């Protein structure tokens, strides 16, 4: 589905096939909090947390809504008005915050893992079979916190199968200092020279965190990177690194962010060849 030339791209920008709206209000993030923030379960949708790992698609209640969802593979041609509303009142202070957004395809998710179990956890794992980006190349795993776990530092080791089909690969995440709170999203590093994840088989914590909480595994495909600020901007593809990522038909889009803020509102335009 390559675009033949610039005129083809221009045509897509002028005539998007899908215009989708994404809106969430989230609990104010902590300044400088290091994991990404997921808005998936936030207001106003207040989606029920998952249990069994389930593949997601554009029909999911959490996916952005608007015009017809793309039935073909697409590109992100424009993002309108993506913004957050940071805490604090001084615009100068607010503008100092990076407010970085990342559009992802949320491929599958699970829940039901415990912050207090230090043996290998396989509850609701392995992750559901990929229905998009099925090679696993460019697919990452993350631990998403549904209900806060405890404050005791711990290291989570995630065991996965890489895009080459090799099982037993591992990545580790450190939960330290800040209690992993609800909505935090921890991408899992790949083992050296791996290019992606096909499935996650288990998670083991080094130390009990002190609270059961509830966390799960998400497989996601990073699509595009959205620099944003409080004013809200219209960004075309020249300002969107990753605009040329293939958004596969049936994508379940979500916006993660890093920085402080309590609202995400944006329109994503997609167009397919």
């Amino acid at each position: 589905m390559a675009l033949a030339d610039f005129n083809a791209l221009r045509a897509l920008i002028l005539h998007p096939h899908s215009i989708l709206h994404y809106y969430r209000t989230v609990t104010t993030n902590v300044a400088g909090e290091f994991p990404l923030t997921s808005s998936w379960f936030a207001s106003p949708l207040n989606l029920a947390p998952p249990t069994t790992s389930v593949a997601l698609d554009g029909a999911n209640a959490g996916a952005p809504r608007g015009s017809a969802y793309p039935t073909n593979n697409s590109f992100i041609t424009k993002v309108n008005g993506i913004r957050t509303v940071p805490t604090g009142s001084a615009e100068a202070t607010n503008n100092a915050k990076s407010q970085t957004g990342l559009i992802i395809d949320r491929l599958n998710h699970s829940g039901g893992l415990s912050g207090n179990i230090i043996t290998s956890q396989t509850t609701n794992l392995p992750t559901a079979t990929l229905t998009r980006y099925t090679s696993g190349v460019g697919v990452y795993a993350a631990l998403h916190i549904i209900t806060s776990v405890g404050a005791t530092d711990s290291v989570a080791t995630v065991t996965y199968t890489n895009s080459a089909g090799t099982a037993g690969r591992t990545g580790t995440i450190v939960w330290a200092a800040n209690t992993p709170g609800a909505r935090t999203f921890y991408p899992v590093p790949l083992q050296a020279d791996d290019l992606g994840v096909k499935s996650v088989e288990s998670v083991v914590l080094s130390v009990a965190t002190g609270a059961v909480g509830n966390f799960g595994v998400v497989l996601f495909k990073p699509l595009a990177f959205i620099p944003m600020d409080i004013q809200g901007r219209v960004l075309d593809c020249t300002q969107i690194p990753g605009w040329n990522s293939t958004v596969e038909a049936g994508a379940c889009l979500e916006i993660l962010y890093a920085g402080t803020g309590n609202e995400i509102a944006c329109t994503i335009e997609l167009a397919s060849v």
Partner: protein
Amino acid sequence: MAAILNLSDLVNRMTGGNSGTPENLFVHKIPYIAGTIDTWATGFLYSCWKYDGIPGPGATPTTVAVPTKALAGALPLTNAGGGREKWLVQACLNASVAADCPMILAYDRLLHIGGLDGTSTSAQTVGGTLTRGTGYVGNMIFVEIYTAVGTTARTITASYTNQANTAGRTTASTVFGGTAGTVGNDANLMIPLPLQAGDTGVKSVESVTINLSTGTAGNFGVTIARPIFWATSGGMNTRDFTTGPGGMFLIEADACISFAQFAGSVTEASLVGMLCTVEN
């Protein structure tokens, strides 16, 4: 290798035509090392090499080596195929709070060594041979502190061969060691060594010499780096290399891409971004 012809050729390749094989590389680094948060001091450059996140943490180097994309710590990427070259065409890097990290460096880590001694006043051998950045122009020398050296500030110089293959060049004397958290002494600090006047690059570093003992051996090393780009955090900071400063950057085969963060305050920040490549 033929240049990318025009904007249409670029668009075609970025969307997968003509074997463009686009690859968009996700970055998320957090300033923790094995569960312990790093400590920043305002105004200094900190290496993300050992930081948690994506890419995963690298290890403290020991003997001199040429790191590649296969090494833990390197950004995962695919080498260009079919005799093509891989080019960086677009990127964005942002810190979680711009004021805490107003500037970020992305670079190819061409060579590194660790295990050097902050008490030794002998010329400490670096050596090694570059396999990337072999045009030598633009290559930089950094001292990286892996474990703090002593609290007595000294100076350090490197003896190197420049881009024109002239040996025996010497970097400007640079502060090394001193009170913890100062310009010459902090774990994960990257200290650039200014080249001798008139030089524009580095072929090799033969040795580094401290004028006097800092008082503590610590563990420091030397890194030869080829800067890819500097990013400023906050706001609309997408870099378009097709028209912007620096032009498209060649990502050499087996490049070991890593990052460094400039501390704008004592509050550490994470780093998020994406690098977009295309093949020609």
